[in-house]
């Protein structure tokens, strides 16, 4: 005897808030609240005091001026059935794979803008006369990760190479949040929300390369690749891994499938020493190769990773992440995507070759609808 499909709106009303509160990402909460009136009224859109961006915080170097912490979100747009998408639908992928977009939030009142997931450059619409509105409500969207930038006004140039912020959930008040940054010259800074200035962690040392949030904690890597955990209460570093002794020039931390990886970047020539007022990237340096290491948490040893399988690592301008290449258009597995000077490049772990890619994978070609592209020649 076949039972009719049950109507979930008969569920006791007190259960929906509990289900809604399981959703942490803002886009999932928005989606939940858009399904029906019952679900919408069961949870608020966020904690009244949850983090909002851009956020004014003390400048890391000169605490008397304010810098602006902006947030960008990486979304994975999944493909839908052919019946949903159409040739004219700008975000409909041409194959069954999805693709990656990075959306940067502008100041209040100004619309969001698309940036490249790898280089962080703004993506311009070819035509200003007929702007098309792409609303993420119409697509299957999964939030992958968030990245942060510190933008400043005045004559102090961008003095940090990486900043991370945690927690950034709809259900947590901003007073619990902490920001952690790596300065250009390699020092490590921490700021709890409400502090008047940044505090230095391990201030005698100038050799930190990268910081990441992993399982709700801050982890940093030094120039040798050893990972330490940052205790935000005592502002001390606790060594988390045995020494790695990676001989490359710059280390990056990437989280992939729940594990931490260190990606060691080797330049062809020794780069110039980082400059206090210096540029973000070494303009003269070209990348020779990468080595990848993974921590075996059971044995507490480093494992040399020769193959990433289906995963691709992306060393973006403000955040590093990994994706599954078979689910995305434009990305190949077992590769590392990075920026080198201003170019977008791809390193293959198969044959250790590096190619310059002439467009941001899956962005430029698929973003703009065919008709609009052809109709407005540049």
């Amino acid at each position, binding site marked *: 005897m076949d039972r009719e499909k*049950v109507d979930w709106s008969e569920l006791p009303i007190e*259960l929906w808030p509990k*289900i809604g509160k399981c959703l942490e990402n803002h886009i999932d909460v928005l989606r939940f609240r858009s*399904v029906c009136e019952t679900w919408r009224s069961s949870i608020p859109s966020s904690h009244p005091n949850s983090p909002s961006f851009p956020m004014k915080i003390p400048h890391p170097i000169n605490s008397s001026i304010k810098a602006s912490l902006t947030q960008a979100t990486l979304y994975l747009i999944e493909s839908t059935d052919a019946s949903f998408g159409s040739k004219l639908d700008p975000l409909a992928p041409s194959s069954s794979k999805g693709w990656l977009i990075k959306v940067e939030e502008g100041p209040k009142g100004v619309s969001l803008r698309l940036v490249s997931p790898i280089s962080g450059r703004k993506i311009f619409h070819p035509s200003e006369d007929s702007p098309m509105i792409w609303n993420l409500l119409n697509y299957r969207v999964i939030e992958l990760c968030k990245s942060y930038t510190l933008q400043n006004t005045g004559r102090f140039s961008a003095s940090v190479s990486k900043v991370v912020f945690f927690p950034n959930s709809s259900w947590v008040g901003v007073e619990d949040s902490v920001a952690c940054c790596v300065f250009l010259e390699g020092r490590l800074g921490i700021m709890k929300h409400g502090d008047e200035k940044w505090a230095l962690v391990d201030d005698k040392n100038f050799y930190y390369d990268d910081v990441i949030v992993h399982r709700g904690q801050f982890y940093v890597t030094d120039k040798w690749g050893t990972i330490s955990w940052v205790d935000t209460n005592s502002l001390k570093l606790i060594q988390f891994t045995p020494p790695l002794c990676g001989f490359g020039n710059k280390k990056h931390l990437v989280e992939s499938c729940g594990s931490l990886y260190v990606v060691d970047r080797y330049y062809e020539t020794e780069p110039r020493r980082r400059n206090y007022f210096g540029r973000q990237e070494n303009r003269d340096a070209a990348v020779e190769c990468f080595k990848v290491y993974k921590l075996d948490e059971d044995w507490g040893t480093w494992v040399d990773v020769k193959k990433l399988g289906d995963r691709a690592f992306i060393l973006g301008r403000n955040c590093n992440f990994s994706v599954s290449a078979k689910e995305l258009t434009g990305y190949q597995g077992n590769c590392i995507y990075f920026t080198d000077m201003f170019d977008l490049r791809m390193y293959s772990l198969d044959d250790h070759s590096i190619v310059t890619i002439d467009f941001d994978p899956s962005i430029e070609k698929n973003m703009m609808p065919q008709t609009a592209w052809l109709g407005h020649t540049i």
Partner: protein
Amino acid sequence: MELLCIRQWISGLLPTWLSAWCIKPVGGALVRQEPEYILLALMGSPLKKIMLCSSEKEIFSVEEQVMVQHSVIINNMIEDGSYNHEESKIPLDCVDSKTLKKVIDYCTHHTHHHNDNQEDLEAWDAQFLNVDSNGLYDLLMAANYLEIRNLLDLIYGTIKNMIKGKKIDEIRRIFNIKDHGFTPEEEEQNRKEYPHFY
């Protein structure tokens, strides 16, 4: 013989470390379990069983410790003495036989296998929740009624995964929500809240 005397005698025999060891989770809190029951179990005494009766009047016999460990409702019934072991069965009129059997399976597996490694338990849970939308709904209602915390959390996690990444109309179809109850103005407001760009 009075059970009370036996219990006191056994308690006296137990070393402190064993008494301290006898804690179990009930409804999310850790509660001291009567150490003498553990000792009785270790000595090979038959474990107490209780009877649960589904809405279809089918009786299921299950170890008392298993249900007491997971269900706050059943634990409360046993502790406040409203359940008489010899005669009663606990009627669960809002849970049908198929669902009750699954709930009992869940509780039994988690009691007997709680020392297994996390990956195995998670794999078992994933297999357990590989049911259709109706089955999940029934399990959720049953877990809510019986107040089984860890099963509820597991089901919430599954529902969260059913919602993540889907379009709104897909979610409405999955959960069979026929009438969303929004006015056109409210729908427009929803659209505006979503990230959108030019």
